[in-house]
């Protein structure tokens, strides 16, 4: 991919199709909301983004909220490019957020503004200590359930986004939406704050269920806005354009 002068530095995702869609990758230090319903491939794509980064020598951090990271690793697609020495060497780190909550004494169902501050600081300090260049939170929606109000959610994502951006860290926040929802997020706040929005979905066409991906917005770069069909393979996420001739959506 040619580098154009005057453009922002890119964080190449390593997913060829996505880097092409983004004209070279995610602008470095952007915070991207990767959203979609269950079974659309969000976690696999986010994980692949981190693995490619770690393979390139960029320290990568996966913050797991909904799933124990050991279970996550047990179910990982047998990627041809994934080597467990990336974990042993500390290039790719997995942290379970519930353990962080526990250590920070956040036992209540709802976090206070002070606790939000504390949580953002803890994530920032961890990312700084590890020299993290790529970070994934899976899922941000689960964190938002502990924040309850739109104001707190907005505040949390803004602060987290700023803290990570200041570290020159490119981050993906995985969001969950209901299967039939036309919204981009569960709380209607997340997508407005994030620098980028990538929507993954299950699209039914004449009885066939296709996994699709569409970049809705990405600050700092031009990007394709068309819909693509994806496949999760041991060679990573592969993408082809959705054929329009039979599209119903």
């Amino acid at each position, binding site marked *: 991919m040619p580098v154009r002068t005057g453009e922002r530095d890119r964080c190449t995702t390593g997913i060829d199709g996505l880097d092409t869609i983004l004209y070279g990758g995610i602008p470095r230090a952007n915070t991207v909301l990767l959203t979609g319903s269950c079974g659309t491939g969000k976690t696999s794509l986010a994980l692949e983004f981190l693995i490619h980064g770690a393979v390139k020598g960029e320290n990568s951090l996966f913050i797991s909220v909904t799933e124990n990271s050991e279970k996550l690793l047990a179910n990982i697609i047998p990627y041809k490019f994934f080597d467990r020495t990336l974990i042993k060497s500390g290039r790719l780190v997995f942290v379970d957020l519930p353990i962080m909550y526990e250590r920070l004494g956040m036992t209540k169902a709802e976090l206070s503004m002070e606790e939000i501050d504390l949580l953002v600081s803890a994530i920032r300090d961890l990312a700084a200590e590890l020299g993290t260049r790529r970070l994934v939170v899976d899922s941000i929606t689960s964190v938002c359930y502990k924040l309850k109000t739109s104001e707190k959610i907005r505040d949390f994502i803004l602060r987290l986004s700023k803290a990570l951006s200041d570290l020159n860290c490119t981050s993906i926040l995985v969001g969950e939406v209901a299967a039939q929802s036309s919204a981009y997020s569960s709380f209607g706040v997340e997508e407005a704050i994030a620098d980028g929005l990538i929507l993954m979905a299950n699209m039914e*066409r*004449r009885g*066939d269920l*296709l996994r699709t991906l569409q970049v809705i917005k990405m600050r700092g770069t031009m990007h394709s806005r068309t819909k693509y*069909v*994806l*496949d999760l*393979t041991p*060679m990573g996420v*592969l*993408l*082809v*354009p*959705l*054929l*329009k*001739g*039979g599209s119903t959506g």
Partner: protein
Amino acid sequence: MTPERVGAQQIANELAEMPPSSAVSLQMSVDNYLDVIRGVVDLFANKNGMDTIYVTATISSEAIKRVLEALDIDSSRVYFVDCISHIMMGAPAAQQDERTTLVESPTMLENLMLKVEYLIRRSQSKGKLVVIDSINSLAIHNNNWILSEFLHILVSGLRSREAYTVILSVEEHSTPEINNMVTLVCDHGIRAGRQEG
């Protein structure tokens, strides 16, 4: 040399004259299928050390494997994208393995392209051949608009990867619309087998 062998060798010779990244339309009659298989897979791809990605929408990959075996053709470098076995409910279908990838339905053309892309990336071979068997079978399940778009994107992608594409069509089942869409994306046409009339 029997007429079948001559036919197969002619097909292989014509393909060998084309540069990599070429797309070729191969029209055949129904009773000429074995010649075409021998010419394309054995005398062209195998002889030139290529991996073959065989997209089947007509008969199951298991049936084609049996054909290759019967013809004594080495199939160790033939990889199948099987679009038909999954919809043959109850029939003895192909099993997904290292050399066979199943697509749920011939209507899932994007998934077909993705499986081809996956096998192209996985292949260590310098030369690659993708066979579409056949455009007529895909036309049973898809309208001409989407099929035409599919061919255009698939062939363009394969050209960029310097893979040969051979699109099989059966003369007896073809229509002017299908012939036109194949002609549009192909550089060369081969007519194999006997012509009626």
